[in-house]
């Protein structure tokens, strides 16, 4: 191996650096010059995250050899801000909401900077041309286009509320400046002295018994510190749902999918570790594999897990009301089959972990995770050590979408290798491994039947779903329940039957992905409802209004809906999109469609039962209809000079904006400006447990915990101010950094002064808060816990698109979306979630699909072949909100992150059908499917008119617990688009 010293000119400085000829510029910038703002997203030039400027032109640092760019001017993101001042473009990215997870931001900003150097006033088309090589998974590209257009200083508005000081305002993200300057440290950006690098070896076959794994050659390779296989890992299974822990850290006896980890290597660098993997010899007794869930449940099919007969991982049978009676009462009954596609979350940052064991035996794990507590819990479970002996640190996370909600083999293998070697061990997935590990959306085979009266009122709905689970459970038990449980939240379903089967197949496990189990059945239901509406001659929006959920209702499956402005979203979207003037009136090739959806604001119950003790120490704990421990917990500590507060909560910021929302809620509760609050949610040693960023729970649950903690602090300050202001504590209010008499706001005391006095007299000023979902959520049937939540979101989308009738190619042109997310804490962040969800959802509907070959290998494990929408594909979007107040939420807020995805798929499918006259019921809706459906003109099955029996109008039960108020009924949205 030969090294040579080259002098790289980086950000105006000459940097002599020793490189190997094969080292890429990306590697050298990150590992040798510690310029980690240049991100590693795919390493083959498909994502643009590693964009740097070379002599002023954007290039992929992963496709340049460092030794070949000697003498050329290289600019990285670290070189853009001069003298501590952000470049105006960076500032625009911060203030226009162009930054979410931030992983694409450095590359995106540099490409945009190069464009602005060429043309300081580019139009939208030119921006799209320039940024087509930079993928973003979070923003839907909208904030990015706004930022590039407005870089000189103009700013968009987002429909802010004027009800509070911080809450309801579009504050820029608290972490955005670090993200646009490259200072934000993601897990793989961190390095520790003596750190080793680990790589995992996955099974080369889809199903087999391990006969022999010979690691001797790998161990003998110079630079290799340790090699482990199944025999070196604890004899403990792990997973997500306690009822289905079915994975070993490394396969012990069997491998069940191509990529199933069988060994791990720690070495001095990744290259050596990679080389060592190739020296590991694995011999298998190959077993017949099964890839199709229909085949997998047949008798005699190859069995993946002995315990699960016919490969049935989860079986759900739920029946509410009486569907037979409901269908008999219907005037029109329609059945249809649908297929949902197998998609991957594809966060821009691949999963990564770094493990270290400290001298006192404490395991410190840095992990790119969206649920640090579950990682913490799972490490304790696998290694049989108390939670208190483990510290989980979550550095900046570059997107999750459900893909980082479970403990990964990286977390566990790096921990084992670190213990074995006594050195820190870093393990990072390649992009290929992100796909091979998967945990993405289940492929769902759905058969649905809907009965309606002549006037469109639903009398019964039946759904049978086969979920292709892959080789392990992961989140899949919950997925199978969610796929049915959420259906009755949107429309009144008087009679409902759901049968779900989740099946093991020899493919990578599927898990939770934005909307967890629901987007596909929601897509199918929305399509079916649109088919029915059109067949019986009712406008698709009208049929929705006639069936739409009302506030303070209990659904047929015992879910309590409090705030619900679903009808308002439908009316607003109809108006704003100009539905009446377009629907049914467009030329062939142009289409308009509607879809709706919503989601939970946090799961009503934790994933594991009982308290937080180690699972193996627990007595079997029966399910009780009450949360055993608080799901969100916060501590607010005021700094001793009273000038700032630190808000500590384990809720993960993963790019969705949690840290900003929690900062705003905390500042509002404390009555001080948000720039005096720092949310520290990274470290389990500092932060009390929060269950994490899944099931769209952070705003409501974390927010409530933070608000309570902030109010706890205020409670301690009021007596001091009361003494000072000579009044009763009850007469006081906080705000703007002051404590003042409500009736006489000029009579005030400085907040910080009160805090100092508290500290001088009593020591640390700390407030604590927690949130437990209301008692008694859900019904009394099996699986009733899934789908429960303190609150539900609602939304309606209208999609407009055109289809090239010769090729079937779809161009999504415009989306109009209205949501009921309660009262928004940060409207810009809300719209950012909606914009991102629309582009992700439209991409899932039209482009994305993991494809497997006959041997179970992923055919397209790269951004080259697994296509995310680029900035060129993103439609124009109008995102609006309807007035709503959720009594369970902090300041009336509920979720937006996942609910925003749900209307998208159905709206796109409907618009395609509207444009072409053909319904494509199998996702993704590719040009090929559209073209052949148009050519073959296959007549679709129609519904059946029947003599419907008379029936009483359905009267839903009222919800239990708090009731939501009737809001005023206003709407607010984004400023006129810069995108037109």
């Amino acid at each position, binding site marked *: 191996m030969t090294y040579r010293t080259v002098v790289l000119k980086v950000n105006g400085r000459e940097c002599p650096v020793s490189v190997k000829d094969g080292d890429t510029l990306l590697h050298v910038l990150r590992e040798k010059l510690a310029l980690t703002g240049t991100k590693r997203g795919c390493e083959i030039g498909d994502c643009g995250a590693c964009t740097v400027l070379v002599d002023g032109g954007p*290039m992929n640092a992963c*496709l340049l050899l460092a030794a070949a760019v000697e003498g050329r001017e290289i600019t990285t993101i670290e070189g853009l801000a001069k003298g501590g001042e952000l470049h105006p473009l960076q500032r625009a990215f911060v203030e226009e909401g162009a930054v979410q997870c931030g992983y694409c931001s450095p590359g995106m900003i540099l490409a945009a900077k190069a464009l602005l150097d060429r043309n300081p006033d580019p139009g939208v088309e030119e921006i*799209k041309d320039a940024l087509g090589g930079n993928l973003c998974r979070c923003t839907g590209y909208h904030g990015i286009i706004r930022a590039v257009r407005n870089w000189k200083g103009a700013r968009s508005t987002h429909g802010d509320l004027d009800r509070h000081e911080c809450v309801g305002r579009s504050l820029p993200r608290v972490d955005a400046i670090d993200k646009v300057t490259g200072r934000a440290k993601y897990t793989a950006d961190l390095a520790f002295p003596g750190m080793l690098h680990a790589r995992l070896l996955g099974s080369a076959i889809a199903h087999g018994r391990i006969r022999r794994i010979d690691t001797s050659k790998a161990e003998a390779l110079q630079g290799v510190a340790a090699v482990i296989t199944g025999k070196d890992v604890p004899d403990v299974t792990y997973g997500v749902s306690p009822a289905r822990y079915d994975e070993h850290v490394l396969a012990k006896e069997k491998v069940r999918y191509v990529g199933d980890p069988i060994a791990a290597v720690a070495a001095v660098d990744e290259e050596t570790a990679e080389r060592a993997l190739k020296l590991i010899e694995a011999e298998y007794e190959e077993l017949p594999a099964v890839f199709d869930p229909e085949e997998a449940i047949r008798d005699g099919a190859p069995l993946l897990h002995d315990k699960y007969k016919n490969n049935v991982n989860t079986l759900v049978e739920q029946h509410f009301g009486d569907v037979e009676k409901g269908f008999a009462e219907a005037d029109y009954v329609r059945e249809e089959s649908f297929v949902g596609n197998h998609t991957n979350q594809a966060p821009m940052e691949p999963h990564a972990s770094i493990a270290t064991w400290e001298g006192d035996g404490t395991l410190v794990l840095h992990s790119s995770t969206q649920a640090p507590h579950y990682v913490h819990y799972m490490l304790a479970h696998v290694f049989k050590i108390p939670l208190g002996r483990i510290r989980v640190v979550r550095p900046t996370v570059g997107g999750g979408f459900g893909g980082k909600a479970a403990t990964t083999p990286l977390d566990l293998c790096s921990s084992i290798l670190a213990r074995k070697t006594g050195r820190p061990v870093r393990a990072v997935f390649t992009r290929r491994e992100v796909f091979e590990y998967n945990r993405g959306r289940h492929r769902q085979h759905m058969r649905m039947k809907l009965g309606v009266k002549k006037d469109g009122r639903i009398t019964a709905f039946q759904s049978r779903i086969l979920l292709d689970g892959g080789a392990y459970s992961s989140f899949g038990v919950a997925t199978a329940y969610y796929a049915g449980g959420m259906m009755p939240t949107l429309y009144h379903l008087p009679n409902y039957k759901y049968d779900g089967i989740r099946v093991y197949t020899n493919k990578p496990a599927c898990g939770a992905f934005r909307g967890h189990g629901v987007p596909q059945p929601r897509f199918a239901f929305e399509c079916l409802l649109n088919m029915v509406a059109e067949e019986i001659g009712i406008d698709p929006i009208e049929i929705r209004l006639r069936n739409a959920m009302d506030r303070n209702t209990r659904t047929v499956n015992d879910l309590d809906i409090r705030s619900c402005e679903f009808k308002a979203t439908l009316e607003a979207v109809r108006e704003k999109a100009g539905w009446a003037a377009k629907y049914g009136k467009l030329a062939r090739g142009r289409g308009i469609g509607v879809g709706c959806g919503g989601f939970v604001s946090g799961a009503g119950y934790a994933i594991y039962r009982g308290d937080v003790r180690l699972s193996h120490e627990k007595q079997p704990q029966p399910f009780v209809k009450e949360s055993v421990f608080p799901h969100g917990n916060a501590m607010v500590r005021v700094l001793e000079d009273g000038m700032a507060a630190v808000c500590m909560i384990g809720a993960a910021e993963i790019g969705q904006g949690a840290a900003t929302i929690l900062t705003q809620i905390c500042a509002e509760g404390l009555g001080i400006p948000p720039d005096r609050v720092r949310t520290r949610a990274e470290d389990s040693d500092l932060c009390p447990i929060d269950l994490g960023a899944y099931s769209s729970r952070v705003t409501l649950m974390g927010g409530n915990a933070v608000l309570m903690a902030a109010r706890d602090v205020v409670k301690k300050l009021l007596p001091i101010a009361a003494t000072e202001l000579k009044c009763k504590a009850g007469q006081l209010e906080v705000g703007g950094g002051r404590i003042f008499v409500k009736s006489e706001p000029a009579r005030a005391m400085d907040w910080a002064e009160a805090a100092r006095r508290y500290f001088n007299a009593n020591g640390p000023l700390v407030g604590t808060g927690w949130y437990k979902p209301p008692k008694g959520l859900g019904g009394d049937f099996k699986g009733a816990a899934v789908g429960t939540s303190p609150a539900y979101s609602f939304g309606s989308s209208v999609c407009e698109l055109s289809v090239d009738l010769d090729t079937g190619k779809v161009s999504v042109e415009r989306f109009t979306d209205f949501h009921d997310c309660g009262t928004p804490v940060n409207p810009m962040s809300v719209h950012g979630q909606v914009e991102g969800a629309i582009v992700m959802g439209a991409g899932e509907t039209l482009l994305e699909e993991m494809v497997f070959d006959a041997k179970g290998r992923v055919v397209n494990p790269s951004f080259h072949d697994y296509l995310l929408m680029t900035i060129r594909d993103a439609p124009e979007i109008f995102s609006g909100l309807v007035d709503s107040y959720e009594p369970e939420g902090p300041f009336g807020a509920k979720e937006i992150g996942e609910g925003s995805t749900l209307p998208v798929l159905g709206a796109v499918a409907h618009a395609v059908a509207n444009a072409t006259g053909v319904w494509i019921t199998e996702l993704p809706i590719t040009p090929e499917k559209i073209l052949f459906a148009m050519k073959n003109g296959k007549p679709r099955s129609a519904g059946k008119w029947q003599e419907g029996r008379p029936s009483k109008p359905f009267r839903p039960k009222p919800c239990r617990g708090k009731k939501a108020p009737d809001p005023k009924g206003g709407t607010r949205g984004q400023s006129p688009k810069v995108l037109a």
Partner: protein
Amino acid sequence: MPIPDLQLHRPRSLEEARDLLARFRESARVLAGGTDLLVDLRQDRVTGVEHLVALREIPGLRAIEELPDGWRFGALVTPEMVARHPRVRETFPALAEAAACMAGWQVRNLGTIGGNIASAVPSSDLAPFFIAAGGEAILTERRVPLKDFFLGPRRTACARDEILTHLFVPAPAPRTGISYQRFALRGANALAVASVAAMLRLDGAIEDARVVLGAVAPIPLIAAKTSAFLIGKPTSVFAEAAKIAREEARPISDVRGSKEYRLEIVEVLAARALAQAAERCG
């Protein structure tokens, strides 16, 4: 996946480069932009490579020159340079369009047109144009018409010790038009599912025609029957010609599209390319 251990050579002349290639033979590869080669190395798609001979320091390979009889493009000219060159856009709009639709801006800055031709990937966006335009590959010591250059996927007439230094395109004859149409699954940064380049010379009827199909055969495919059919015909036969092009295509099914779909697309693109080429005949 790291790039294997290898040695980078940065010769300053073609002679030096050829010496290196002759010395290291099978273990050496020419490095132009690297956007294909480095990915192949990283993904273990090529093996046994120990030496990279980088062309970048060799003078004279980065120019676009308008000569009396045609245009000479240095092998290291980037797609971005082609796409933005005002005279190229005027003279060969199809070439500028083909270059502009490639990958993303970063790769268009980094990749080279010589590399795009020499790597001989079936979905190349530039090869169909250069063939349709009657282009030639200028190698170190000989010229090869591009229609004869491609031998198979990633296999060309350029021998191990030869270097593709330039691409030559003859000046377009009067009343000649060229169009390049491609179909990809998304709006940017996507490989062509199928593409068609069509050259027409009109004088009332079609005097000359060359139709080349991309991504539907192991190499950019000259649709000989289609081209022959067109000569002497009026411009009303494009639909019929497109059907012949479809018959000539030999696509495979892959993750981007089935064989059957590619056939459909080839027909559509051929008709569109012919219509646009006719329009461009002026």
